[in-house]
């Protein structure tokens, strides 16, 4: 099948939009049809993204499946899509997690199903768009679009304190992304000014990547991009929206939030911040690495004392995302590969953990760890699933989490053994909070709280198993055969590092 002739990226990206529009015309009363349509469209998008996987040539260095059309020609803004290994991986991750999340929402979401599914599908459009856009302006648009459905998903279907959480999420993210908008515009203008006022290519990623910007612009534009992505990913000290958002979000919202939205930050760093402003990236790298190490340790330590399951997982995300930024900014091959792997793995593992937390929450409407205990006997399959993903999160070799983490360690060791040593300690803390959580939930005698809710404590239902199994399989497969991912992203890694290797830090000695 020749898929090169089809605008396949557009199809993948906007298939969910079509679904959302269809759902808008389905009467509110037929919730089943709404659910089926939502799942169907997300599966269509997923299936198409798998075709992409088949047709992709890892050896080919450039972007593939490129589609371009002039959009706003006055500013050289294009509708330009394309994937390389990195975006391909993220696209497939997104499509996979989306249908899983939609499936996982069938049970818990009973109110306003129609609006929920529409929001979710639009969310998917935004996320996919971010990963395939090759025009900075287009990228920004998708980056922002994501906010709106997520805002609604947390705000409408979330927990008790949802409004605070969702507004915090949106405002915090907006501050960063709007500054990035200034950065994007400044970048484009710098390009335009250097090309005699010609806007052509000023927003085109591939063109901009070839252009070297002057150092002042780099320093400021990088900072703007950095802030946007650092908030999104989120890095210490910009992370506090995350625990709130996770705690209040509905299960599927948490899954997508952890699984994909946080990756937008990492993706942005790798795709835009570093290649466009390599010198600035080098200049700021030590500070970013310091923040990453702090995030790794700090997130893990704070996770140790969390009373709420979701908060614990949220802080563990802060810690895990610290690896991503660390891996990127050590500018080592293994570090970058590890960072990418870590993004994927964290998406799978933490996504699954949130699904699991959601399973329990749906039955007991509580997530307080202190009230739990002894679930192993009551829900053995659940315990096994939870244990599996808990161990994957702890970085057990053989499961995917380990590879990413270890590659980051190796990369950071090459950068500085001290940094590696400081961040490797987190292995202990991670085991600490995860095992503590596991012990409190599953070991010991059944807690009074659970005894009271024992009627609801049935083991995993078939739908729930169906949502978890793909993730589990992927965790094992990527743990044993990380090469599947590594070969895909090798091109991106080489490209990014090649650009970064030629740059050197800017001399910040302004006083001279």
């Amino acid at each position: 099948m020749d898929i090169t002739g089809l605008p396949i990226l557009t199809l993948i990206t906007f298939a969910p939009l079509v679904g959302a529009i269809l759902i808008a015309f389905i009467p509110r009363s037929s919730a089943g049809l709404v659910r089926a349509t939502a799942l169907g469209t997300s599966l269509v998008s997923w299936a198409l993204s798998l075709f992409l996987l088949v047709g992709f040539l890892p050896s080919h260095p450039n972007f593939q499946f490129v589609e371009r059309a002039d959009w706003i020609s006055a500013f050289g803004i294009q509708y330009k899509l394309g994937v390389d290994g990195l975006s391909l991986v993220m696209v497939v991750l997104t499509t996979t997690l989306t249908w899983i999340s939609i499936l996982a929402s069938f049970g818990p979401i009973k109110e306003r199903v129609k609006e929920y599914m529409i929001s979710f599908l639009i969310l998917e459009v935004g996320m996919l768009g971010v990963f395939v856009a090759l025009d900075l302006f287009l990228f920004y648009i998708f980056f922002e679009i994501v906010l709106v459905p997520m805002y609604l998903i947390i705000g409408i279907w979330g927990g008790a304190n949802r409004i605070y959480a969702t507004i915090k999420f949106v405002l915090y993210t907006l501050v960063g992304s709007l500054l990035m908008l200034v950065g994007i515009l400044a970048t484009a203008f710098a390009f335009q000014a250097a090309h005699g006022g010609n806007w052509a290519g000023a927003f085109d990623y591939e063109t901009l990547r070839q252009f070297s910007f002057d150092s002042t612009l780099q320093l400021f534009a990088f900072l703007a991009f950095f802030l946007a992505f650092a908030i999104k990913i989120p890095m210490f000290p910009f992370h506090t929206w995350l625990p709130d958002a996770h705690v209040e979000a509905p299960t599927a919202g948490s899954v997508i939030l952890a699984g994909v939205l946080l990756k937008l930050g990492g993706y942005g760093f790798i795709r835009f911040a570093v290649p466009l402003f390599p010198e600035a990236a080098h200049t700021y790298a030590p500070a970013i690495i310091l923040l990453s190490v702090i995030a790794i340790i700090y997130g893990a330590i704070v996770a140790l004392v969390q009373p709420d399951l979701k908060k614990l997982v949220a802080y563990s995300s802060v810690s895990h995302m610290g690896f991503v930024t660390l891996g990127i900014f050590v500018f080592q091959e293994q570090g970058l590969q590890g960072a990418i792997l870590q993004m994927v793995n964290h998406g799978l593992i933490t996504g699954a953990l949130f699904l699991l937390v959601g399973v329990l929450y749906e039955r007991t409407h509580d997530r307080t760890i202190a009230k739990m205990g002894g679930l192993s006997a009551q829900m053995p399959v659940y315990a096994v699933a939870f244990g599996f993903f808990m161990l994957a999160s702890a970085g057990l070799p053989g499961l995917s989490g380990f590879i990413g983490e270890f590659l980051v360690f190796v990369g950071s060791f090459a950068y500085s053994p001290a940094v590696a040593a400081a961040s490797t300690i987190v292995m202990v803390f991670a085991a600490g909070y995860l095992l503590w959580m596991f012990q409190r939930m599953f070991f010991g005698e059944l807690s009074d709280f659970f005894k009271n809710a024992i009627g609801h404590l049935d083991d995993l239902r078939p739908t729930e198993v169906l949502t978890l199994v793909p993730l589990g399989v992927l965790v094992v497969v990527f743990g044993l055969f990380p090469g599947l991912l590594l070969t895909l992203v090798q091109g991106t890694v080489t490209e990014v590092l090649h650009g970064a290797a030629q740059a050197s830090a800017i001399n910040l000695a302004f006083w001279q």
Partner: protein
Amino acid sequence: MSAADFSTISPVVAAVLVAAAILLVDIVRPGSRTLAIATSLLGLAIVAAVVLWAGQSTADAFDGAYRQDALTTFLDLLFVAIVAFTIVFAPDYLESRDLPFAEFAAVLVFAMTGAMLLAAASDLLVLFLGLELMVIPGYLLAGFAKRDALSTEGAIKYFLLGSFSSAIFLFGLVFTWGLTGSTRIDDVARHLTDMLSGGASMSAGLAMGLAFMTTGVAFKIAAVPFHYWTPDAYQGSPTPITGYLSVGPKVGAFALILRLFIGALDPLKTDWLPVMEILAALTMTMGNLVALTQSNVKRMLAYSSIAHTGYILVGLAAYAAGRIEGLEGVLFYAAAYTFMNLGAFAVVAALQRRPGVTSHLDTFAGLGRREPILGVLMTLFLLSLTGIPPLAGFFGKAYVILAAVQAGGTLTILAVIAVLNAAAAAFYYLRVVVYMYMREPTSEAEPPKHGSLVWAGLWAASALTIAIGVFPGPLLDAVHHAALALP
């Protein structure tokens, strides 16, 4: 008055005739709303057609007092659109409050005439008269619900302060006129260039005149600290009229700024640039900060309109700092702002169709459930006002920010202030969304029926809001040409 003059000012004449026709119809068939509405809309369509016809050529009329160029056409069309939307949104609201439609429409069209004169004025006197013709009907409209204490209160505040500022503005105009010896904008600009040639700085009298004029226009566009009338007048006015007031006189006042500050005072732009920068920063920040604390949607939107003035001023400052894109940004922003803001007010007006319904946030509680389509449309307008892509508001903001970034220097700081403000603004816009979707309705009352005209208007406004964001190309071309018409 020659035939050529007449054909050049034909849009204005057509507008006056439409106003007259509305009054005439009301005299012939008193109280027939349908007829009056039809007349108004038909008349506006004719005006639009005439504007387009006249816009085919660039011409001066009345010995250079009136100029027909691309900017005129652009602004005229915008004014016609504003008035048309207002007329579409108003009848439901007015009818349920037993307010006459014909007087309303006629006065509105008179105001439009004034605005159109501003868009075309190349003479200080015409400028002043156009301004007065635009704002005096505005005072009347603000107090149009004359039995309503709030409406009249808003009106008298608007009137008193407006007249005060008009006097100040006029005083400044007179000083400028006295120094330059002419009322023609081109002559003024030429004289100023001569006076400033050789690096001379402006005289004290000119500085004084400039200060008075800036104060006057800053008042009309509701820039901080001359904005005080805005929230009170907006909140007091009948809601469809608030919608009009928030865009019509504001865009009109920006037309005045374009003709006066860019047309006549262009030689002084390095002098008024810092003032505009400060005004822009103050206006954005103060508007947004106070809007954060509002619980009445109309008043919140009033403060938000102040903030939007600030964003537009960023574009103006960028122009003064040497970027023509700033001017384009001003025009683009004005157009984008028009439709989303009118749309938002239209939703408020639709909700207030039953007399006695306030515009408090509680009115919006559960709207997403009670009236889903209205909820979605309101969300759309609010998101656009927030600046979420790919909607019109986002593109407008991006445009002025781009211009500011291009201008560089202090303007970059202004751009950063602008985006920080935009982020803060998201809070209060989204709070309405919170009420609409995340709160339970306070009353179980059956939602009122909305006229098909209102629906048509809402759909049109939302379509424009989306279209300007997704396909900004045509509008970009238009503002590009319009901006080129200025020196």
